[in-house]
């Protein structure tokens, strides 16, 4: 009489379906020469304003486009379209994050061969998007000065999953007594070595350094593809 539970070994990655689609997307982006950047942050960190500025500054130099995820409205897509770049909204309904399948679906009739850079703005949320690979080359996590310096310590998972951090709204830093050194130390604590950019999309301050970084990343990735 054994009361040992009978265990049937299986080993299945729960997010396998997403990861398979993300891998296929990454291969597709690479083969078409499109460099893909995703943006994650809490709601209100300034993703859309930052992206609008980025698209506007990049558009004279390269072919850019954006996908923007939101629960309900198309407001962000309308705002981003002012940059003149092609923009498409992914309305997620009640879903709090983007998944690779949504990206795949929204790209269906886009000619990636005509795009150098594609930005994917995730739904404002510092928790759920961390789990989902979207096939991006570079994940940016945004943190506004008004959110406080300890955000990285409160949400280490998403900061750890990102490749670079952008501190936004630095034109407000003095007013909210933002402590730059502490914020940077907290980012480095949860993701040692992460590049950090301080920008104001409103005044344009810091945008040059960020765009240079992006150009370098893009160039390095193109070299890898052609070698």
């Amino acid at each position, binding site marked *: 009489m054994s009361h040992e*539970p*009978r*265990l*049937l*070994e*299986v*080993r*299945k*990655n*729960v*997010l396998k*379906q997403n990861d398979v689609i993300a891998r296929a997307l990454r291969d597709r982006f690479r083969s078409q020469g499109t460099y893909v950047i995703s943006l994650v942050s809490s709601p209100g960190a300034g993703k859309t304003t930052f992206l609008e500025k980025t698209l506007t500054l990049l558009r004279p130099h390269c072919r850019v486009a954006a996908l923007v995820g939101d629960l309900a409205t198309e407001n962000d897509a309308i705002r981003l379209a002012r940059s003149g770049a092609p923009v498409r909204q992914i309305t997620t309904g009640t*879903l*709090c*994050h983007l998944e690779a399948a949504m990206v795949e679906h929204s790209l269906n009739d886009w000619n990636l061969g005509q795009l150098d850079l594609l930005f994917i703005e995730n739904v404002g949320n510092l*928790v*759920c998007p*961390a*789990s989902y690979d979207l096939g991006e080359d570079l994940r940016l996590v945004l943190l506004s000065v008004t959110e406080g310096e300890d955000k990285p*310590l409160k949400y*280490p*998972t*998403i900061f*750890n*999953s990102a490749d670079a951090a952008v501190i936004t709204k630095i034109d407000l830093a003095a007013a909210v007594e933002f402590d730059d050194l502490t914020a940077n130390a907290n980012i*480095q*604590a*949860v*993701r*040692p*070595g*992460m590049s950090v950019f301080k920008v104001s999309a409103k005044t344009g301050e810091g945008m040059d350094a960020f765009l240079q970084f992006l150009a370098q990343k893009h160039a390095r990735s193109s070299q890898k593809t052609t070698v």
Partner: protein
Amino acid sequence: MHELSIAMSIVDMAQEEAERRNVRVEAVHLELGALSGVVKEALLFSFEIACDGTPLEGSRLVVKDVPIEVYCPACNLPKILASMQWFCCPDCGAQTAEVIHGKELVITALELKQ
């Protein structure tokens, strides 16, 4: 909260596996990494809801927490992080971003009804 959709995936995958092998499931065993982005309590709560009306109704989710294991370049060894707010070697203090384990979200076994 994405735990409900993850719980639904777990139920679907477990059910598919059970049907294929013609067995009945008492519990689903899962490895959950501290860096998976999934909250254990929310997942356990969601699992019950996701099981409702399926052949897995009444089954349990048994979660094994997987701590964050990093590679320490100074000690040249894998180490378990003491805190996820501090990505550095618990022994020598060297910073490291090289994660070996902790992102798992894996069904490891089905516990079968006797």
